[in-house]
């Protein structure tokens, strides 16, 4: 499934390897090449895929930029929300799914409630995150860290039926190779008695595990 998906994304995008190369170069601090966007008779269905996932029609966007103007995280993004919307319209799938933006979005939905075209921009971001996950795109830099955190959170949830802050932090620190990350906060919380080492395992933990398994089976079947 992941391989197939990646093939499709490659076909969807006319620049194929360029965006990945760009991300790679950016990571290394190189000058970034800007190849022209090629529009030919191969129509992109990225807008439609987003619509299917999120129920939000990105093609309605008229690029007023209000989402960017109000976004509390925009200052940290590599692409602004309105640029993401534009890229979805043009079908630049690799640029979009490899961007930091889609995972830095905090789903605060300020964009959605202010969008003059009634587009749930935050829901579009949500669906792009999911699409990136489906295609096994781990992201780079900040976006990778978000991804690792989300995975760590779901792993503990799967284990105990509830999330466990200590374990989530441990897993995150190990997997992101920064063992002492947020140690100061941990210590402060420990002193305040706000940390519990023993996880809270619920009785119906198997029910929760079942949920994860059934969804995995569904995804594989699809």
């Amino acid at each position: 499934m992941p391989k197939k998906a990646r093939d499709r994304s490659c076909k969807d995008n006319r620049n194929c390897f360029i965006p990945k190369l760009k991300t790679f170069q950016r990571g290394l601090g190189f000058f970034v090449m800007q190849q022209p966007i090629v529009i030919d008779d191969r129509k992109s269905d990225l807008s439609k895929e987003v619509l299917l996932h999120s129920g939000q029609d990105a093609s309605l966007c008229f690029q007023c930029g209000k989402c960017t103007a109000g976004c509390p995280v925009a200052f940290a993004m590599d692409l602004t929300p309105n640029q993401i919307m534009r890229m979805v319209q043009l079908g630049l799938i690799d640029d979009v799914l490899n961007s930091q933006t889609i995972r830095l979005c905090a789903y605060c939905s300020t964009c959605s409630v202010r969008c003059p075209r009634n587009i749930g921009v935050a829901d579009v971001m949500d669906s792009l995150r999911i699409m990136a996950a489906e295609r096994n795109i781990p992201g780079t830099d900040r976006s990778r860290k978000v991804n690792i955190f989300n995975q760590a959170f779901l792993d503990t949830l799967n284990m105990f039926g509830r999330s466990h802050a200590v374990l989530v932090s441990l897993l995150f620190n190990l997997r992101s190779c920064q063992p002492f990350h947020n140690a100061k906060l941990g210590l402060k919380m420990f002193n305040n008695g706000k940390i519990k080492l023993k996880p809270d395992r619920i009785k119906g933990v198997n029910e929760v595990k079942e949920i994860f398994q059934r969804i995995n089976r569904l995804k594989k079947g699809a």
Partner: protein
Amino acid sequence: MQRIGVFICWCGSNIGGVVDVPAVAREAAKFHGVVYSAEYKYMCSEPGQEMIVSAIKEHRLTGVVVASCSPALHELTFRKNIARAGLNPYMLEMANIREQCSWVHQHEPEKATKKAVDLVRRAVAKARKLEPLFESAIPVTKRALIIGGGIAGIQAALDIADAGNEVVIIEREPTIGGKMVLLDKTFPTLDCSACISTPKMVSAAQHPNIKIYTYAEVEEVKGYIGNFSVTIKQKARSVNSKCTGCGTCWAKCPTKNIPNEFDMGMSTRKAIYIPFPQAVPNRPVIDRERCRQFVKGKCGVCKKFCPTDAIDYEQGDEFVTENVGAILAATGYDLIDWTKIYGEYGYGKYPDVITGLHFERMVNASGPTGGKILRPSDGEQPKTIVFIKCVGSRDEAKAREYCSRACCMYTAKHAHQVLEKIPGSQVVIFYIDVRCAGKAYEEFYLKTLHEGAIYTRGRVSKIYPEGDKLIVKGADTLLGRPVEVVADLVVLATAMIPSAGSADVARTVGFTVDKDGFFQEAHPKLRPVETNTGGVFLAGACQGPKDIPDTVAQASGAAAKIIGLLSHSEIAGEPTISSVNEAICSGCLACQGICPYRAIEPKEIVERLPGKQVTRVVASVNSGLCQGCGACTVACRPGALNLKGFTNEQLLSEVDALCQ
């Protein structure tokens, strides 16, 4: 016995590309009553029309069927055409084989051809039953009524009056002048708005053919094109016609500090007041909700000091009736109340966030600040001013989907005025698009850019105060970066919406409004100044957002239409209206309740039966009011009502032909 000719049009490839036109013509020739059948590339063209005329003469045709486009497009053309050949123009029947056939069945030519044959058979069946109809003559009252005394109403009034017709203007406010007289300078020429509009106000007031009711509203409209009877409610002004406008009363009035609506609440007025010094008429009005005499029952200062005894506390609302032949709706616009919609801009709680109209009053030499641009909060001169366009426009989620058309230009003008009046000032304009489609508009915009206005492409998402400054959070979508401006003053270009109460005007006069509440024109391109109701016209921003040049142009256009109507002493009434067969009418009057135009009234007739005379009631149709909708014919149980040109017999023969 009718002799019918059938003429089938190719409409180039529009019909001919799908329908086998020659085959349809051959089939048509076989129909009962048809003595001639022909086809041609363009029936509506000169040679096409000639072909019909000569066929009528040559084959002594008594009825004509044209199978072409929709009758909405060319029925009138062909009616005139057959009249040239000496036929009654109503001996024409059309079959729409374009919109209803070739266009909708493009991919099924065979079935389309068969359908075209059916449609022609139907038309021929009806044509066999057609009867000549004759237009009636409706007398025309050579006076016009204009609702709204803004620049549109004034311009149209002057044009119509100069052509020799009497005009009545009704204005809701205590003065005419509308929004234009409040503005400072007008784009793109920067001439003073009041200097060019107040002379027109005075001309209208002094014109021998123009009668003005201010502080008045339309109460009721009866009648029809050429013959309207309008009841006007003259609200009690509490000041009678003896007033000379000397100004003693408002100088002496003790009730102060009432926010002046005409200065957007930025200045104050008294309880007896004129809205602004150039008001027409120059006669004050008492605000009865604030006046001490009315609220507390004692004061009487103005009455005591008035040198001409013009104050009349006892005055009540009066109702006046005016008879006119045409009505012009020119009720203008209001600005949307952004303070109820835009929480992200502060819901109006920050005093230094104002609208474009506030700015106009402020920058106006006769306005509340004497023409100085000052922050409402502290009266300081602002250095950095932000303009936000499309507040309420192009925002279907919160307000209106449409573009308000004038804001791009007036914002450019505001920017120019700031840069001119405040040395060292900085102007930032947030826009989505810059729309300058007008003569010398683009040039004006470019000039403003050159003067240093910073045009930033992006919509503002939030405004909040920080100290005595306002932080404006926008974006530069061209650079892909958020933008924060530390501003002293923010001016919002708010959406133009139909003026308050315009829906009531539409209902009282009897015409339709569009989805946004603007008055609906009869045709967006070809009949832009008429409504769907005969004799009722429209002009200015009541029809849709407009700037002054467009408003004045439309007002003169509407005036020309009205002058045209009033130039006739009689006009032709449509003959396709209902008629009553009195012999079988039972007088039940079910039709009266169903008629949407109030065109049916009971009438007494005297019948002579063997040996005696009997009086009985029957329905009668007012030919001036009947619009030929046919609702009454359906309600009539004995079948006494018939719509001429669409009689029951004609319709049934069409159904028969289609069911063959």
